[in-house]
């Protein structure tokens, strides 16, 4: 068992008696894209700043490849950070921004030029070398910021909301470029984001943070399909959470009054999650007896799929239906009665 690439051990941090991080433990493997996900104030940025060395933890240690870097100042740590606002130097042109970090190392001029050209090619920044930072677009600035870090060949790259400043179209494109780049270079990425879609599509693994604590660590599938609690379930995607009753060895979803039959594990779960895309609705033609019947309260047609808000016995939940046939569109309308169905294996039971 090799030791993890980056280890965060019992790291705590307070600001004026406000707890920013509370005994955080994390292990990050080499060459993975790891996301720290949480709403603002959850401590993810503080953790990133501690890894970068801008803040010192009150307690705990940071090990990089087994070496304790907790007390090292930022300028000797073999890692780099890309800031949310990029923090490019406005008084320097693109080339000078990129070679800023190299000039701090003892490297020959030829080597600097070689590495700058290499990175300019890699990030398709050729032709912008002499431009000032305010003379290039937001997307180009983002690539300069990335180039300025990558040219240092860091062991670890920290990215603070790397895509937040880009407009939506550019964001999707840049997401793929980032993943490709990471794959090509094999550098470990730690990304801080509040955008769950961004985290899902970029990460190999992610950590969900709240109030300075890590709630769950896992790959996107685990986090989405098997969230540890209600908060995570609601934070990632849309969640339909039902109460579960355990009566005489019968497992019953209370709100739907539905008995789950094919269940092996009859533990005392109190809640269950069924994601909206796993619930399908069908317009009721003839009175059917064995399936649940609900009323459509809202319909939102979104092109590739349609969102339905369904009410059963006063309880509301969502169903997302793929519009795989043109004739599917707008078949179901407000106040229609619908049949609800789902696969029992799609039910995820948990304790709150």
């Amino acid at each position, binding site marked *: 068992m090799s030791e993890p690439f980056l280890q965060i051990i019992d790291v705590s941090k307070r600001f004026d008696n406000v707890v920013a991080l509370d005994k955080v433990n994390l292990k990050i493997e080499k060459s993975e894209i790891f996301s720290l996900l949480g709403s603002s104030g959850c401590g993810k940025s503080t953790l990133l700043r501690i890894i*970068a060395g*801008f803040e010192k933890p009150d307690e705990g240690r940071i090990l990089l490849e087994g070496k304790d870097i907790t007390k090292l100042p930022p*300028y000797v740590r073999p890692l780099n950070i890309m800031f949310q606002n990029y923090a490019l130097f*406005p008084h320097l042109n693109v080339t000078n921004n990129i070679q800023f*970090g190299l000039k701090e190392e003892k490297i020959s001029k030829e080597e600097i030029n070689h590495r700058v050209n290499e990175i300019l090619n890699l990030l398709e920044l050729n032709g912008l070398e002499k431009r000032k930072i305010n003379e290039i677009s937001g997307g180009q600035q983002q690539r300069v910021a990335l180039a300025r870090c990558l040219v240092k060949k860091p062991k670890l790259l920290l990215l603070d909301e790397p895509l937040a400043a880009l407009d939506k179209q550019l964001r999707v494109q840049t997401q793929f470029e980032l993943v490709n780049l990471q794959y090509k270079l094999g550098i470990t990425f730690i990304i801080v984001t509040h955008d769950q879609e961004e985290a899902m599509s970029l990460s190999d693994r992610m950590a969900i943070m709240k109030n300075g604590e890590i709630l769950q660590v896992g790959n996107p599938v685990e986090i989405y399909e098997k969230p540890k609690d209600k908060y995570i379930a609601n934070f990632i995607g849309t969640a339909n959470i039902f109460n579960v009753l355990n009566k005489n060895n019968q497992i019953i979803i209370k709100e739907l009054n539905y008995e789950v039959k094919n269940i092996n594990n009859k533990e005392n779960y109190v809640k269950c999650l069924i994601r909206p895309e796993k619930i399908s609705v069908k317009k009721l033609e003839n009175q059917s007896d064995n399936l649940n019947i609900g009323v459509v309260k809202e319909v939102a047609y979104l092109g590739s799929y349609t969102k339905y808000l369904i009410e059963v016995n006063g309880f509301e939940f969502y169903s997302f239906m793929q519009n795989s046939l043109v004739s599917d569109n707008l078949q179901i309308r407000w106040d229609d009665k619908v049949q609800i169905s789902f696969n029992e294996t799609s039910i995820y039971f948990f304790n709150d």
Partner: protein
Amino acid sequence: MIKNFKKQNVWFVFTPYLWLVLFFFVPLALILKISISVSEWGMPPYRDLFSLSENGLEINSTLGNYLFIFSDPFYIRSYLNSLSLAFTSTLLCLLIGYPIAFYVAKSKTSIRNILLIMLIIPFWSSFLLRVYAWKVLLQGSGIINSILIHIGLISEPISMLHNHYAVILGVVYTYLPFMILPLYGYLVKFDLNLIDASNDLGAKPLNTFVKVILPLSLPGIVAGSMLVFIPVVGEYIIPEMLGGSDKLYFGKIIWDEFFVNRDWPIASALAMSGIVILVFPIIIFQLMYAKYNFKNE
């Protein structure tokens, strides 16, 4: 639209120029006129430039005043003294003011406002009083000497007043806010992430200061230095009150020529040459600086 605007607001636009002409160019022209006049006893103490006599129109103009002041090392030395005072005190203001401006700009908003008020409070009292206060502090029976004698560091009062060190002290004290405020104006806009970014890229604190903070606060340094340097060259009151006979300053010489010797033409020639010597380097500097700024914008 724009045409209408221009027609209606022509006076509005020209008012500042009118002000400039009336209160700057006209007096300047008067001084220029006096500086090339011939001095004589009377009121005013110079001969009219143009006079009518039996021989027709007579022009009584001379460059003698200028020749005189440039041939007398006394005037040149006083001018150099003033330049050196301005240079020294600007540098001191910068060295003292920069850390203060940086500290104020980077403190929390609530504390920042209090600190700014503390910087501005001295302006509420008269400039003359503040300089006089230094005179009281520094004199032989002043507080500083009393304390030093009391704690036994010295046995009799040291003479701190009436030398050029006292002048530098007074000037630095008086002009420090003029350095701090423009510096603060630039530093408060400074993105702290840039310092983190520089550190992260491997630059140690000193390199970060030299390569990032300093170049980006250069406009503030220039503005503050100008605000200190220019008025100090002509400073009269502080050398008069705190200075001694060890060094004579330009402002005081002009005063003496005007009011003691009543030689208005010489005094005007001194003032004019002072403006010319001071203004040209500043114009060149400003042009260079505008170019630098333009490249950066």
